[in-house]
């Protein structure tokens, strides 16, 4: 490892160093607002550096790769970190979050996401994933007085640990089968004569269980609603957007490495995608709690991404990355709205709490509407372009039935997204709403997300071009 190697990791190092500094400073002079602002500026600095960095090296220590792909995701996750801190501004203060730890943990998890996305070896993959997980175990229970926190924390930790066990065993088997942990080779090594070797199949099964847990694919999705419900809204936002997005970002090269062998597991992935989609939309349809609804919706969205993923090819990869970028922004934004609407007494729970929101906080209502439209895939939002690409990749790969399944799922999903939108616009006649009125600091992040959602929805060309560029080195 040389100094030039570090050059590729500068953004991550900024995050890391900043996080450590804040953690230490928190032990002496905790000041919530200051720390949050410091965290935001650290994250934004990292983001800026990532955007403008041009690393000379291709790989660091044989674990992380550098280049536009890595830079892009470092920038994205740093940005998400900054946004998460933004929406926690009032939320955490009201709940007396320990500032040093909170900011540091958020930044650490961004580091984890960055590592995961830039992993060029299964070691990096595992390290990144665990780094995210460990941070989120803590962040989930960060609001210790919350009645749901213990349950959510325990469920997440135990299930996460078991998933780690599967993942580790899977990686070990991959290593056993191929003798390497380097990414393209490890995957392509399992394919012999166009077929995956038996040990490889077992390895992939184990691996899929582990990854499926992180991505909340069926049947490993059970933790999702419970943890989403129990964790603080900003944390849930980051969990739903960044942690999943980073796993997908890491999966894309994996899938590409598997190349011909991918065809063999495509039927399995199709079945998983269908089941995931079905479970997500059906359960979301009958939810009455907004966070659980978003959780199941996130499950269904993972089904969509899986469709694009299994479709493969450049189109599929482009669809996956575009979708995860837009989805991250949207989902973080919607949890940002929830955070903004939280009072010291609690977060928004029942859907009926949202009734009449449009007339009390028009701005948040508009933002929420945009996010919900985007999740539903209604045009002029980023979600539509994302969904368009997913269906396009499916049709292109000949998986027309998957596209039709996606269409049906989208149709059912209108049921819950639009129900919420309607509630927002319906005049409230009965009791006063328990939701907070709109307050500025968090709004900036939410506004940013909503504007970005619209801009990408109307002018997706730059982002599409960029995604295409980072995929073809």
């Amino acid at each position, binding site marked *: 490892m040389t100094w030039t190697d570090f050059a590729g990791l500068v953004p991550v190092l900024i995050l890391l160093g900043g996080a450590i500094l804040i953690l230490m400073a928190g032990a002496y002079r905790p000041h919530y607002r200051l720390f949050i602002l410091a965290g935001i500026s650290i994250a934004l600095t990292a983001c800026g550096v990532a955007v403008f960095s041009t690393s000379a090296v291709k790989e660091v220590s044989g674990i992380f790769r550098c280049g536009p792909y890595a830079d892009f995701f470092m920038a994205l996750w740093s940005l998400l970190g900054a946004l998460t801190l933004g929406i926690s501004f009032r939320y955490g203060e009201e709940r007396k979050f320990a500032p040093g730890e909170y900011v540091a943990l958020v930044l650490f998890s961004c580091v984890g996401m960055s590592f995961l996305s830039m992993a060029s070896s*299964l*070691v990096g993959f*595992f*390290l990144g994933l*665990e780094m995210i997980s*460990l941070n989120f*175990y*803590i962040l989930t*229970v960060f609001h*210790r007085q919350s009645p*749901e926190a*213990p*349950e*959510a*924390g*325990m*469920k997440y*930790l*135990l299930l996460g*640990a*078991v998933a*780690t*066990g*599967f993942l*580790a*065993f899977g*990686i*070990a*088997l991959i*290593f*056993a089968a191929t*003798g*390497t*942990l380097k990414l393209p080779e490890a995957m392509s090594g399992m394919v012999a004569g166009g077929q995956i070797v038996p*040990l490889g199949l077992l390895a992939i099964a184990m691996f899929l269980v582990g990854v499926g847990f992180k991505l909340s694919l069926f049947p490993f999705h059970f933790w999702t*609603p*419970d943890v989403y*419900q*129990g964790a603080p809204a900003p944390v849930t936002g980051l969990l739903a957007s960044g942690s999943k997005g980073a796993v997908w970002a890491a999966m894309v090269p994996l899938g590409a490495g598997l190349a011909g062998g991918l065809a063999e597991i495509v039927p399995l992935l199709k079945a998983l995608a269908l089941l995931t989609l079905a479970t997500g939309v059906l359960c979301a349809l*009958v*939810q009455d709690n907004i966070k*659980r609804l978003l959780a199941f919706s996130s499950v269904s969205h993972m089904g969509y991404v899986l469709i694009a993923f299994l479709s493969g090819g450049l189109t599929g990869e482009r669809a996956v990355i575009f979708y995860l970028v837009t989805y991250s922004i949207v989902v973080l934004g919607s949890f940002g709205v929830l955070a903004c609407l939280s009072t010291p007494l609690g977060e928004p729970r029942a859907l009926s709490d949202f009734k009449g929101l449009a007339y009390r906080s028009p701005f948040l209502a508009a933002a929420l509407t945009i996010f919900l439209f985007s999740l539903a895939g209604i045009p002029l939002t980023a979600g539509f372009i994302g969904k368009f690409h997913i269906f396009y990749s499916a049709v292109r790969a000949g998986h027309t039935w998957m596209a039709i399944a996606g269409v049906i799922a989208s149709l059912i999903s209108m049921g819950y997204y639009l129900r919420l939108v309607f509630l927002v616009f319906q005049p409230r006649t009965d009791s006063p709403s328990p939701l907070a009125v709109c307050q500025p600091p968090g709004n900036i992040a939410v506004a940013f997300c909503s504007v970005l959602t619209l801009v990408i929805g109307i002018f997706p060309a730059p982002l599409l071009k960029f995604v295409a560029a980072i995929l073809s080195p």
Partner: protein
Amino acid sequence: MNVPFSHLLIIAFLLFLMGLASILVRRNVIRVLIGVEIMLNAAGLVLVGSSALWNKVDGQLFAVFLMAIEAAEVALALALVIYLRRRKGTLNINAFNEMRG
């Protein structure tokens, strides 16, 4: 190397399944965590063994990382156990079922 690799794999599998079984059967948080540790150890075994098979150091390296992460996880888990015990007074995993549906 006297032990054939397949034996090692079988042992590791058995170990993994034992861990899995203890996860499935046990109702106490700590015991479940022990099951997880067993699973991770199975992974470690495979890593070290195949490292020897392929004559590469990567596997051993990974095993070291694994141990580190295990340690971190356990530390967190024990902290959580204390927290749970304080809040709920029980460590039975099925006592935590308020969020469902």
